[in-house]
């Protein structure tokens, strides 16, 4: 038998959606190949990206479609030979080396379902420290890190955990929000597919910190591959004593259940998610009480996003101060930005806060995929404002974004070229709200339906000025009178579209004044 060569082909939704499974089957059939199905490094524009380990260095080729495999094999790629699709050593790809990989430092690198690979790259060292240090020290480290929630609202994680830790009651829960409903976002998915054990470790640390022994992960049903991989990761962790009774011989026990969402955007809102986890329709709850005090089944509950929780093991392992050394002002640490829509080099870019939106879109993203001029960018999901090209120099910073009436949210960046019609996008924002509204309050339920009608009338040039004023009033009512951000923030994309792109709201017959 000849020498074995290790070849990596991602088992990750984007790569698989472009043929990675077929590529993997073909490569696995070669003699002397050890195939590893890794996560994606995040350069989705290069997927399926195949890597070959040559003398300890990983050489990348991509994008490799199933049709390219034959020519790859013919050029002796197992020795790292040249080929039109050869990208060179993975660790020299500029898109990747220019990042600040904290939460994603193992993603792409390792086999997501290998405990050995996980621990070889620092896995479980945060939990071990946490087990030794105890709840008070965990909370201190978290406070020092300045970590804020990555699900959208940016609430300081340490304060949330402390509230749950101090709440009275025997039973407490950790509920991980993996609903990832914002269009243009996929970081939760990439993390759970590429390094699921880090989420499990983060949840364990949260459990230790607040005194919870049970966790739930609420995963959107639109992610079937993520589900399969995460279920495999849970059983792997159980088998190796990282979940269940007396974890690694300690007196700490913790279990995690995986629940699926069912196609409702509003169930990403934390109280609707809790309702859904209890088996009910996802109606928003009134706050107070805070979920931290009365959450799942009425018990004190930590609700955190996947990326928030998966950032914690590193904070424990390397120290909160190290994390806080990234990023300006009150936007500490890193965020996994996601470049999506009409962008040449789409994918995941984890960077310290503070770089500008333009740097992300131009330096990493390479501009639009169509090659046409960029016209608008929506950051932070369907409730985020549309940003015109003139504001692209805004730094990625929670407060700086608030100043321009925008939000960073979960870090999704959706790029549109100059073929976009912003009245159509504004109409969609209202329509989406009408479809997804939980129906509990009138400004959202009725206002969104009215909003669609009013925009239609504006574009049709019926009582234009009066209807523009009406749209403004309607938006104000939704902002002021909605119970949650679904109705309360839908006006942001709408009003930003009107403000920055007024010509799109003129009627096509040009009769407007």
């Amino acid at each position, binding site marked *: 038998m000849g020498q074995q060569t290790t070849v990596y082909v991602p088992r990750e*939704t*984007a790569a*698989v*959606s*472009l043929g990675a499974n077929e590529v993997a089957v073909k490569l696995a059939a070669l003699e002397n190949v050890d195939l590893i199905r890794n996560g994606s490094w995040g350069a*989705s*524009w290069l*997927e399926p990206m195949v890597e070959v380990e040559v003398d300890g260095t990983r050489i990348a080729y991509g994008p490799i479609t199933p049709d390219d495999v034959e020519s790859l094999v013919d050029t002796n790629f197992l020795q790292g030979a040249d080929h039109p699709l050869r990208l060179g050593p993975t660790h020299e790809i500029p898109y990747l080396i220019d990042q600040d990989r904290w939460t994603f430092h193992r993603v792409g690198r390792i086999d997501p379902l290998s405990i050995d690979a996980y621990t070889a790259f620092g896995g479980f060292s945060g939990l071990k420290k946490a087990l030794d240090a105890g709840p008070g020290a965990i909370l201190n480290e978290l406070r020092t890190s300045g970590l804020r929630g990555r699900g959208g609202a940016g609430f300081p994680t340490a304060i949330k955990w402390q509230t749950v830790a101090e709440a009275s009651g025997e039973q407490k829960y950790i509920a991980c929000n993996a609903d*990832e*409903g*914002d*269009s*243009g*976002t*996929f970081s*939760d*998915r990439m993390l759970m597919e590429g390094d699921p054990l880090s989420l499990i470790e983060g949840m364990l640390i949260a459990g230790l910190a607040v005194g919870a022994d049970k966790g739930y992960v609420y995963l*959107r*049903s*639109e*992610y*079937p*591959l993520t589900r399969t991989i995460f279920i495999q990761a849970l059983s792997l962790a159980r088998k190796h004593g990282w979940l269940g009774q007396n974890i690694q011989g300690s007196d700490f026990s913790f279990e995690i259940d995986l*629940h*699926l*969402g*069912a*196609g*409702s*955007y509003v169930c990403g809102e934390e109280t609707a998610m809790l309702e*859904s*986890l*209890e*088996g*009910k*329709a*996802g109606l928003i709850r009134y706050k107070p009480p805070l979920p931290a005090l009365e959450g799942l*089944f009425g018990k004190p509950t930590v609700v955190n996003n996947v990326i928030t929780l998966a950032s914690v093991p590193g904070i424990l392992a390397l120290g909160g101060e190290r994390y806080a050394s990234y990023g300006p002002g009150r936007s500490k640490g890193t965020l996994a930005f*996601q*470049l*999506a*829509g*009409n*962008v040449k080099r*789409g*994918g*995941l870019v984890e960077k310290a806060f503070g770089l500008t939106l333009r740097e992300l879109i131009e330096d990493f993203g390479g501009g639009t*995929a169509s090659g046409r001029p960029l016209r608008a960018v*929506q950051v932070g999901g*369907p409730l985020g404002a549309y940003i015109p090209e003139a504001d692209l120099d805004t730094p990625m910073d929670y407060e700086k974004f608030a100043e321009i009436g925008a939000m960073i949210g979960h870090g*999704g960046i*959706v*790029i*549109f*070229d100059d073929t*976009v019609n912003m009245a159509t*996008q504004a109409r*969609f924002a209202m329509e*989406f709200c009408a479809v*997804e509204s939980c129906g509990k309050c009138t400004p959202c339920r009725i206002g969104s339906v009215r909003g669609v009608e009013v925009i239609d009338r504006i574009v049709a040039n019926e009582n234009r000025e009066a209807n523009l004023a009406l749209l403004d009033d309607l938006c104000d009512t939704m902002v002021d009178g909605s119970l949650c951000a679904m109705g309360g923030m839908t006006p942001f994309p709408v009003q930003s579209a009107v403000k920055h792109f007024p010509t799109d709201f003129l009627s096509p017959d040009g009769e407007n004044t």
Partner: protein
Amino acid sequence: MAIRYDATIASEIINNFDTKPEMLVQILHAFVARYAFISDEAIRQIADELNLSRADVHGVVSFYHDFRTTQPGKRIIKICQAEACQAMGSRDLTEHAKKSLGINLNETTRDGETTLEAIYCLGNCACSPAVMIDDAVYGRVDKRRFDSLTATAGAK
């Protein structure tokens, strides 16, 4: 082929979730996985066994997009309608799909082969437009790729 409803198997499914009302959403998923939709019979039986009213179960079923209440086609095609895919032409793609299948969104072809549905985000936003056929996600689906996928993928 439609799978005939079977009360014993339905009971087993509910049992797999310890007959707990808080597992209702998960139970409904398991029913959809088996029967492709939630029938009136299913609602009745789930309500009985979980000790809930039929209205309760119906309320949950109607709240969630995933729980359709009519028999879909053998193959279900979902086209992402959210912003990242819009930026890459999903509206055109959807029109093309409707025209080539001869149906609107949320309809099934007359031969019972294909159901077309809207979906809001498959998390494949760097490779838009995204389409899901049964459980498989496809990226960068232009009209040509749509035609070749629907000619082969998912046909059972």
